[in-house]
């Protein structure tokens, strides 16, 4: 969460309505191509040396409930076009929802005029990495069941059943929500690409609250779900995708009802849990916790635009400066640490066929055997690190906003030797096993961070001895990753992620996944967060 770190940033509630319970009607590809060509020709005729156009049709459905009430059902569609141009070596951008020939020409002219005006502020011309045109191509998120085709009533009934299950198990309150997103994006550029993509995302979530009326104290437990680049199949429980232990953890299918029942019980247990004694502990971090630490301490600092200073006024810069990468031996983490960027990972939030400037997606190494080996970048910055092509990290949250560098899926690779979480815990003398994400904060260059969690279990001499509360861990990024002592194998690998990752001015939201297996970090500073007012 770069800018303002807005994990749960603005929810795009705007758009044109579509009939509930029906999928988004697609726009005829031939029509989109005609509109795109109109825009590209208009831009070229006004002097653009490069132009691209994104025609977006976005549908969102958000269902918000609490206890026995459906508070809101929002169903929107938004349709429009964004035109980006280079004129006199400078970028210009304009967006419109007036999609007739005049409206498109007007927007193209506006983008060109802005570029011409701003060229006097430009220190050096924009330099784009070469990109071949792909011709007419398509890509779809490989979903099994379209969430928009599931009747609204079925979805509200599920959320109300989840709420009832939590209340029956002793919760005082539960807030639950289901978010569905469908991005239908058509990209065309003067390079000769015409790319049609149909992208789906889903996120079920809740917060259970339990109150002790005598003391006035309360505890909360959030859902252990992950937002995913999947269809409604994610909502269909499957025993094979469950990991049973202190609580149930989920791979590629989620059991929201079960998780809410467990959450109500665990919120009660948190009431009587021991307040942690501050000090050094070996931490065993479940992927439901570690994904956010990866996001903040590796995902953001390896974004090249941050390294170069493009985010200095808002999201910040990065401690992973070019000289460290150029040395070829900057030790980011222990030799166990291998972190990859991947825009193709099935089921992930960031998976697409092509990015928002028409670059084909791929996987590449960021940290190899503990050493910083690469960044994440886009076409107008690739040359700065000597790349011949972009890595495909360009994204815009809507047709209204200009595309810029956004995080790829960034994931910690599983350990190469067989290791399960219970085997890992067996070797810990004094530690804490942490499940779920909670409070998170990191400085603007990504050195100093502090994270909390949902569930904390004390480990003594290889045994779980009970629940803890008031836990947060605080570390320096490089010291933390160098303390990585063991990583469980691929059987434990799971995806977490952020549905609303904020960055940029004006701020935009991105969705990105982070995979990991349960991992051990030795000697991490743990603080006690209890206070009195």
């Amino acid at each position, binding site marked *: 969460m770069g800018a303002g770190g807005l994990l749960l940033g603005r929810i795009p509630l705007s758009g044109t309505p579509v009939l509930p319970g029906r999928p988004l009607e697609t726009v005829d590809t031939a029509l989109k191509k005609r509109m795109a060509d109109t825009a590209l020709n208009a831009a070229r005729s006004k002097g653009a040396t490069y132009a691209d156009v994104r025609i977006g049709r976005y549908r969102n459905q958000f269902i918000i409930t609490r206890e026995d009430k459906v508070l809101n059902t929002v169903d929107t569609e938004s349709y429009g076009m964004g035109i980006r141009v280079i004129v006199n070596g400078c970028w210009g951008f304009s967006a419109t929802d007036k999609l007739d020939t005049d409206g498109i020409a007007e927007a193209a002219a506006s983008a060109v005029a*802005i570029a011409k005006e701003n060229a006097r502020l430009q220190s050096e011309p924009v330099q784009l990495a070469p990109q071949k045109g792909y011709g007419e191509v398509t890509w779809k998120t490989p979903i099994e069941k379209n969430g928009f085709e599931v009747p609204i009533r079925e979805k509200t009934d599920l959320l109300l059943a989840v709420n009832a299950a939590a209340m029956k198990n002793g919760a005082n309150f539960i807030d639950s929500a289901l978010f569905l997103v469908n991005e239908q994006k058509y990209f065309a550029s003067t390079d000769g690409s015409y790319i049609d993509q149909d992208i789906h995302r889903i996120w079920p979530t809740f917060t259970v609250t339990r109150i002790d009326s005598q003391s006035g104290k309360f505890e909360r437990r959030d859902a252990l779900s992950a937002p995913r680049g999947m269809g409604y199949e994610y909502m269909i429980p499957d025993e094979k995708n469950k990991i049973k232990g202190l609580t149930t953890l989920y791979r590629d299918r989620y059991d929201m009802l079960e998780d809410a029942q467990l959450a109500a019980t665990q919120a009660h247990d948190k009431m009587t849990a021991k307040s942690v004694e501050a000090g050094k502990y070996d931490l065993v971090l479940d992927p439901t916790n570690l994904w956010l630490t990866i996001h903040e301490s590796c995902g953001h600092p390896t974004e090249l635009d941050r390294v170069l*200073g493009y985010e200095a006024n808002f999201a910040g810069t990065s401690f992973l400066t070019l000289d460290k990468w150029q040395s070829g031996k900057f030790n980011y983490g222990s030799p166990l640490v291998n972190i990859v960027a991947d825009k193709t990972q099935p089921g992930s939030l960031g998976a697409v066929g092509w990015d928002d400037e028409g670059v084909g997606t791929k996987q590449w190494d960021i940290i190899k055997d503990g050493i910083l080996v690469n960044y994440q970048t886009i076409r107008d910055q690739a040359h700065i690190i000597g790349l011949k092509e972009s890595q495909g990290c360009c994204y815009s949250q809507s047709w209204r906003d200009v595309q810029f560098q956004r995080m790829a899926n960034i994931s910690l690779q599983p350990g190469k030797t067989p290791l399960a979480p219970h085997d890992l815990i067996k070797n810990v003398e004094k530690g804490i096993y942490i499940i779920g994400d909670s409070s998170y904060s990191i400085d603007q260059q990504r050195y100093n961070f502090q994270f909390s969690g949902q569930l904390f279990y004390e480990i003594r001499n290889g045994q779980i001895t009970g629940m803890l509360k008031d836990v947060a861990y605080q570390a320096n990024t490089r010291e933390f990753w160098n303390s990585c002592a063991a990583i469980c194998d691929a059987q434990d690998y799971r995806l977490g992620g952020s549905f609303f990752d904020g960055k940029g001015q004006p701020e935009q939201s991105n969705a990105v996944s982070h995979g990991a297996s349960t991992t051990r970090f030795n000697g991490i500073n743990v603080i006690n967060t209890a206070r009195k007012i």
Partner: protein
Amino acid sequence: MALLTPDEAQTLLKKVLSYSKADECQASISGNEGGNLRYARNSVSTSGVSRSTELAVSSVFGKKQGVTTINEYDDASLEKAVRRSEELATLAPENPEYMPFLPAQTYGAVPQAFIPATAAITAAQRADYVAKSLQIAKDSGLTAAGYLEHGAGLSAMMNSHGLFAYHTQTGVDFSITMRTADGTGSGYSSKGYNDISQLDVQAASTTAAWKAAHSGSARALEPGKYTVILEPAAGVVLLENLYGSLDARSADEGRSFLSLPGGKTRLGEKLVDEQVTIYSDPWAPALPGTNYSDEGMPREKVTWIEKGVIKNLVYSRYWAQKKGVKPVPNPDGYIMMGGTASLEEMIKGTEKGILVTRMWYIREIDPQTLLYTGLTRDGTFYIENGEIKFPIKNFRFNESPIIMLNNLEALGKPERTVSGEGGGTAMIPPMKIRDFTFASLSDAV
């Protein structure tokens, strides 16, 4: 289309309501025209313009409600939006908390919120402002990254019970970070106004440049409790979390820092130092705001904290009815009263302390104590014997605004400031606070 006159808005909304077959119908329109220019590495990076409107239609049958939004305005599209909201309403379960739409209300106009010169800013003006800022960076041998954004907005609402509300507002925000070439110094400044004539890009850029030039080679102080002076741009990011938590329902439900055992709350209790008085007022000359709430309630001047006592909380119409009290809409901006001392005078009066100019990445740790964590950023300085002595390395803090406002030593003259996190504006004085808790050091510059 983006900025309709009151008559145009009435005509459009009346037409929308004429298509309704529901028990109740409410339509609201919002529109915005604006532009932005972003720069970094002493050069323009991205820039654009936007012009957009949105019509929301809410239809109700009994206690079943459906909401749709649209951005097309031909008759067929308007009728389609109404039909679809009605279809959604019929599919929705009953909401036992549904409150019927309000009848006609009286709203005082806030003409000072809309400044024509701000609404008329051009691409050339944007470039001129940024050129001034870039020149200061170049003259100082610094690297600038900044952002200028301006807009003119409309909001209007009408319902089948005769309510009509209308408001227009303009705004311009500017923020600038200057960094030294070697990356050891960084300074920040941000300003926001309704009126472009109040924006002094050169002054803000000069402030950021001074902080950058004087924050290199920072020394490390031991983490611990220190007396701090928080500049308004620093204080606002912690205080906005306090403002956003003044909610009656969560307090009554027992899940707020305002909750007490047995279902009681701290409403009426003295919770912070008696120097603290916080209010909101749509007609405040320095911070004019929207005159009606999302529920259509007229906004009035409300005192939230008076001499340290919690005087008012936000009550939604539903919760107010359940509790038998008057509803209190959420405000559009907050004003914290202060004194007359300037920041410089407060520094002069400080024997030992730390000047914090910006805070960053503020996140809640514990809602029961309103405990937040975050970091200092872009210029942190040690004060001794009334002078800024040397720059210091940034700290992480774990602190509650409630504890902080109990340790208040002095308040300076309030000024309008923009949150570097939430983006909201408020009037905040510089604050001198004892025993502010810094938990650890950060290497970040």
